């Protein structure tokens, strides 16, 4: 497909590592993409910037990643004059050729000819008793509080779950002056050993993980691995946490808990854009299908970064560039043969790097598996859907009494996933419970359908619109 620059309307959704590099690549080619981001400042989550006026240095904010963060932020600053940048703007719907936006409580339409979706990710969580208590947050939340607001969770903090972020967060918190009283890793040492060859494909990452663990031990922060069956107790907020390990149960008093198992891609806009989805066994999630460089199943729609599959910040930058290059190649703009060949060669190299990164990701999943049995084996009274307060028992009864075997049917009959978050938080656990109760695989349980708006929008935005009409 060939199009003149005048008729192009390229929109990039997300100004994290992937979106920034995609924008940079297009700007270098003389195009002026629209870059829409929900946050006030560019950087996504890992390189999230605090509000203007905050004073900590990049080193204080990002530690080992300071240089990368700085490079990304600087690149974006240089880009700003060359792009149409829309911060503080939510893309809440995608129909063919058009996006619905919300900015400052007002609705706007944004036509597009091409889309690069760089929608990122959020923590993957599994429910456990007491997980809805005030004081319980995701690992990412705990990190954002520190990075973007200069706060830590107050009082005695427990960090529980699995994944590289577990130790990074505990380290950052202890360094910042939080009272980290325990780090609970559900993964076993054996799993990490098995994953070693894959993990060593990114030795720097691996080494950092070891560094954080040794640093924490040296500071006297108790680290436990092979932890299971955590349960939080408390009246109005969390007051204590129980867990089992090697058949023994331990309980400690605490005031806060940060929990998570790696990340889960945000794919709602890809779905609304009509992308085909495939169940990804590695991520245990339905992901939009795309080729090695980010072409989705829909012509004109490209995907990059963690929003199309968790691959980390470095891969996000590369995939952002790869997707933009693919878009440029598909546009078939006039260029000399040498330039085209160079572009094609770079795409090949990027694709190769991204593929090999996948093997590292494989290692991570082996080293840090998600404790899905927390959902599958939980008590009936455990709240699975936070928004609607739907319990595991309600889900299981629907399977047993109504023969439910598919997740959208389960949603229609039990209301799971029908709340404000549209299943972002509960979807994974609900699928596990459904699969377990119905005797099907998680893939067979189906994919929770997304409906616009992907996040709640105020009625007022509709009224302001109609008043203008």
């Amino acid at each position, binding site marked *: 497909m060939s199009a003149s620059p005048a008729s192009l309307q390229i929109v990039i959704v997300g100004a994290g590592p992937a979106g920034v590099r995609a924008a940079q690549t297009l700007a270098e080619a003389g195009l002026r993409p629209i870059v829409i981001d929900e946050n006030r400042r560019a950087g996504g989550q890992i390189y999230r910037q605090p509000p203007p006026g905050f004073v900590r240095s990049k080193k204080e904010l990002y530690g080992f990643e300071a240089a990368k963060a700085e490079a990304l932020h600087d690149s974006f600053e240089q880009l700003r004059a060359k792009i149409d940048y829309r911060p503080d703007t939510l893309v809440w719907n995608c129909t063919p050729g058009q996006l619905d936006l919300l900015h400052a409580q007002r609705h706007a339409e944004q036509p597009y000819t091409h889309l690069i979706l760089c929608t990122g990710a959020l923590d993957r969580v599994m429910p456990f008793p007491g997980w809805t208590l005030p004081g319980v947050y995701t690992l990412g939340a705990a990190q954002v509080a520190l990075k973007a607001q200069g706060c830590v969770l107050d009082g005695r903090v427990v960090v529980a779950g699995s994944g590289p972020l577990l130790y990074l967060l505990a380290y950052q918190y202890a360094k910042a002056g939080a009272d980290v009283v325990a780090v609970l890793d559900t993964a076993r040492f054996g799993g990490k050993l098995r994953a070693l060859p894959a993990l060593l494909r990114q030795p720097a990452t691996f080494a950092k993980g070891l560094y954080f663990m040794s640093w924490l031990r040296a500071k006297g922060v108790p680290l436990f691995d092979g932890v299971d069956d955590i349960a939080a107790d408390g009246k109005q907020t969390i007051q204590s946490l129980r867990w089992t390990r090697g058949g023994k149960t331990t309980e400690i008093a605490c005031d806060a808990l940060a929990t998570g198992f790696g990340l889960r891609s945000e794919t709602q806009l890809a779905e609304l854009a009509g992308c085909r989805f495939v169940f990804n066994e590695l991520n245990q999630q339905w992901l939009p299908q795309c080729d090695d460089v980010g072409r989705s199943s829909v012509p004109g729609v490209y995907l990059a970064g963690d929003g199309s599959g968790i691959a980390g910040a470095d891969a996000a930058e590369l995939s952002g560039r790869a997707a933009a290059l693919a878009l440029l190649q598909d546009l078939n703009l006039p260029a000399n043969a040498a330039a085209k060949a160079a572009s094609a060669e770079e795409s090949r190299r990027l694709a190769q790097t991204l593929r090999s990164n996948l093997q590292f990701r494989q290692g991570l999943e082996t080293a840090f598996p998600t404790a899905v049995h927390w959902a599958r084996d939980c008590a009936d009274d455990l709240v699975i859907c936070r928004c609607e307060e739907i319990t595991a028992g309600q889900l299981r009864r629907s399977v047993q009494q109504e023969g439910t075997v598919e997740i959208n*049917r389960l949603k229609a009959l039990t209301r799971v996933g*029908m709340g*404000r978050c*549209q299943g972002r938080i509960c979807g994974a656990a609900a699928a596990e419970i459904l699969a377990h109760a119905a005797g099907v695989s998680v893939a067979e349980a189906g994919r929770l359908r997304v409906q*616009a708006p992907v996040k*709640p*929008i105020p*009625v007022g935005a509709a009224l302001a619109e*109609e008043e203008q009409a």
Partner: protein
Amino acid sequence: MSRPTDKVIDTDVAIIGGGLMGTSAALELRRQQRSVVVLEQGWCGAQASGVNYGGVRRQGRAACQLPLSQRAHAIWRRLGQTIGSDGEYIASGHLKLARSDADMQELIAYRDMATAYGLELELLEPDALRRRYPWIGDKAHGASLCAEDGHANPRLIAAAFARAAEQAGARLLQQSAVEDFRFDGNYFLLQNSRGVRVRSRFLLNCSGAWGKEIAQRFGDTVSEQAIYPNMCVTEPLPPLMSLSLGVVGGAFYARQVERGNVVLGGGRGDGNLALDATRPRTSSSFKALAALTEMVPALRNALVIRTWSGVEGETPDHQPVIGPSAATPGLLHAFGFSGAGFQLAPAVGEVLAELVTKGESSTPIEAFSVKRFAVQQPSKQESKV
């Protein structure tokens, strides 16, 4: 085309379409000791039956629908006994608002007409309206109240009818479309995409937006198009709207469910019947929200959390097709409800069962005859909200 299995299921009645019309007919036929097989391409009740607004309303229907609607009303009142669950049905009352004096005149005329059908409506002048329902803003010029109309949860009702039919001995073949349709002069022979074959004396065409397709295979002329009603829902809110709300002209219809969400319909979404794909339309949602908040100002601060659409079959005169085929004996139609089928469904099931067992129904259904399409295109009548 799938390969046929050797087995043929012999049954008195085969029903194409496992939505409310099909499953309520199946339930009633089982009560009359007829054997029934329901063939459904997806899950029972997942189409219009399960995603519609949920209005259980007589007020506003054309005169020709009122006898059927009154019959249905009596069944709704004892729904728990019929299907073993109430599907969150509540006789909250239905308030149809006037936004002008002309609207009010229309409501008065309708009230006068409806009395003859046993439908008692109370007209409220603006002052009385606001005294009784202070949450209705001062843009309303009055309203007509039907105290016993109400609403229910369509997802639960559709599923409950299917379950009740199955428990009564109806056989539900889901997740499989009918691919082959034959009539040999005495029996219907159907085959679905899994190769299952069903032979029956009677065939009920309850296939909603797909009704025309089936009807035409058996020689009936039908005018039906797929429409995609646009729906929105808010976050759960503190109790505000004590009854189901409509407005003359149909710009919006809204109800607040017990959990607090306000369900709102109005305007059209988009879709593709062949792909069974639907999607809501932002402009329709916004127009409906504007119309709603003009009447209920307190909802201005609510959040919209979801929008959707569904597939519905609409005829030119907005009346359903109910009754015997004009071309094929033993074929009965019940489709094309044009967005107003939910409340009628329990009675439609009984009527279909009567047509099977007795050859006629005690409820007048001539206005819904399939023959009307072959003659001429009737002009569109003002029939619903």
